[in-house]
């Protein structure tokens, strides 16, 4: 069609014709789902900032203790309660332990608990949720009643009761957090499976004779991966918070072991005289949780196939 205005040809434009082949030409390389997600993830400044902050903290947790003048649990009463100095970068505590070493060893413990708990919670949640979703019927009803019952009460109360039975330490805490934290993932996976069951492509695969296993591995799992990863990203700061809470009320990690939650708890005892002892672990916990939150938000936007362009 030539551009016309009120029946007359517009002299300002010139018709150059249409080359059909050129319209069909693929100019840019096509992107896979993951490439596209990665491209969109990078565009979010907040998410990239989150990754940078998180990497910084992980790096410090790994390398920080190596730069310390002494081990995290080595006491030296001659050097107790020191402020920041060239020798002890974060000072020392009341037993003369180097706080730079304790903060980063504590970071290892907190981050480790966060990741371990998130992975284990997700595994149990995925397992239980897919059983409920795929088997259905009475099994589903029973599982969902149990989930509802456990969800009806604050999970920190459950974790506290469990931690009192299992005793303090890293592994008991991971165990308690796992036993109480799988509920939301189970609900999520069950819901996903129920809605995916009704998708047209699953119906198509079924009618083309694909067996159950193929439907699950080729259609259901790839389509659920996004929400599962996002849920796990948000579970890590949740577990880090629970660690801090439990250590704070005195049933989580116990000295001479250390964690960010325990450091906060110790810091509160000397907040008037040595406020840095409280501020440093508080900043560590907050920034780590903030970075994971930002990454989670970025992933949610990047992994949503409906937002793909």
């Amino acid at each position, binding site marked *: 069609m030539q551009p016309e205005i009120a029946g007359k040809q517009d002299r300002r434009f010139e018709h150059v014709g249409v080359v059909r082949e050129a319209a069909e030409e693929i100019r840019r390389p096509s992107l896979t789902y993951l490439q596209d997600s990665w491209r969109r993830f990078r565009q979010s400044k907040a998410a990239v900032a989150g990754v940078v902050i998180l990497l910084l903290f992980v790096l410090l947790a790994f390398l920080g203790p190596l730069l310390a003048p002494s081990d995290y649990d080595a006491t030296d009463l001659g050097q107790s309660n020191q402020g920041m100095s060239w020798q002890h970068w974060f000072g020392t505590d009341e037993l003369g332990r180097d706080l730079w070493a304790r903060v980063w060893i504590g970071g290892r413990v907190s981050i480790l608990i966060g990741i371990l708990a998130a992975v284990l919670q997700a595994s149990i949640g995925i397992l239980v949720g897919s059983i409920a979703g795929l088997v259905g019927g009475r099994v589903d009803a029973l599982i969902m009643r149990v989930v509802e*019952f456990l969800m*009806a*009460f*604050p999970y*920190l*109360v459950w974790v*506290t*009761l*469990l931690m*009192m*039975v299992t*005793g303090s330490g890293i592994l008991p805490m991971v165990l308690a957090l796992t036993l109480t934290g799988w509920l939301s993932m189970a609900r999520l996976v069950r819901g996903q499976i129920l809605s995916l069951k009704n998708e047209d492509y699953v119906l198509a695969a079924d009618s083309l004779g694909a067996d159950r296993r193929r439907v699950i591995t080729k259609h259901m799992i790839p389509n659920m991966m996004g929400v599962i990863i996002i849920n796990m990203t948000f579970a890590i*700061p949740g577990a880090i*918070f629970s660690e*801090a*809470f439990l250590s*704070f*009320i*005195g*049933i989580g990690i116990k000295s001479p072991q250390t964690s960010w939650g325990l450091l*906060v708890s110790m810091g*509160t005892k000397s*907040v*008037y005289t040595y*406020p840095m002892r*409280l*501020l440093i672990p*508080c900043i560590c*916990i*907050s920034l780590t*949780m*903030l970075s*994971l*939150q*930002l990454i989670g*938000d970025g992933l949610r936007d990047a992994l949503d196939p409906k937002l793909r362009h």
Partner: protein
Amino acid sequence: MKLLKYAVRRVLMALLMVFLLVTASFFLVKLIPGSPFTSEKMQAGNKEAIYAYYGLDRPVYEQYFTYLGNLLRGDLGISYKIRAVSVNQIIADAFPYSLDLGLRAIGFALTFGLLLGIVAAYRRGKAMDTLTMVIAIIGTSIPSFIVGFLIQYLFAVRLKWFPVAQYRGFAYTVLPTFSLGLGMLATIAKYTRTSMLEVISADYVKTANAKGLSKRRIVFVHQLRNALMPIVTLLGPMVASVITGTFVVENVFAIPGLGRHYVTSVQNLDYTLIVGLTIFFAAFLVVMNLLVDFVYLLIDPRIKLEG
């Protein structure tokens, strides 16, 4: 009639839940290693006398049924650590503080959360919107006790604008209310913004505009009413988060409420107090959830009861 049947079923379910929780927490506490009396110096025979006094010498199942029987009469037993004081008395003394703090926190969070969420939605992409999102992210990622310590140090210890601790008047309540409410405020603002955005572009708003209704009528009758409906469902989880929030915030600000008692009871292995408070929290939460469900049923005409 349908409503009555639904109500009866829901109440029965709630009672069953509380019963299951009583059983679960009773036996979990029995599994805890150690005893609340191990730390005390005792002469021979005293331990037996104390165990007999608290009924701990009898078999566990008998203790369980005694406990259930007492519970039916509303008696939660006596504390093992705070001498000669019943759990009921502790709850009666401490609950008003927690209730007051919790209500203030919820009020604070609702007022400013809704306000921020609504303004952010109407000014989408503008400075207020960005500010709301920043508050939402910070509020959800910084734990309440860290907020508590930070503002306590800044505003009470350094600047001396507010008292450091305790709970004896309005000035005392400001910092605890803020630390307990900030997380909720963030969640509410986020939800409100999302649901307002959905409503702003909804078909019935276009219709209302086309009919020539006044701006005020559209905002208050058509938009807010529909957008705020989902916020009611947040009230249940909010009560839960207030309960766990008081565990730490009351400790930070030395408020003699239930949360503080819960933490000390855990540290002291005060079994009757732990179980008693757990049951109290659970019952409170179950009742609140029931209320929220009924309120939702009444205000949302779209919900139809099945069966």
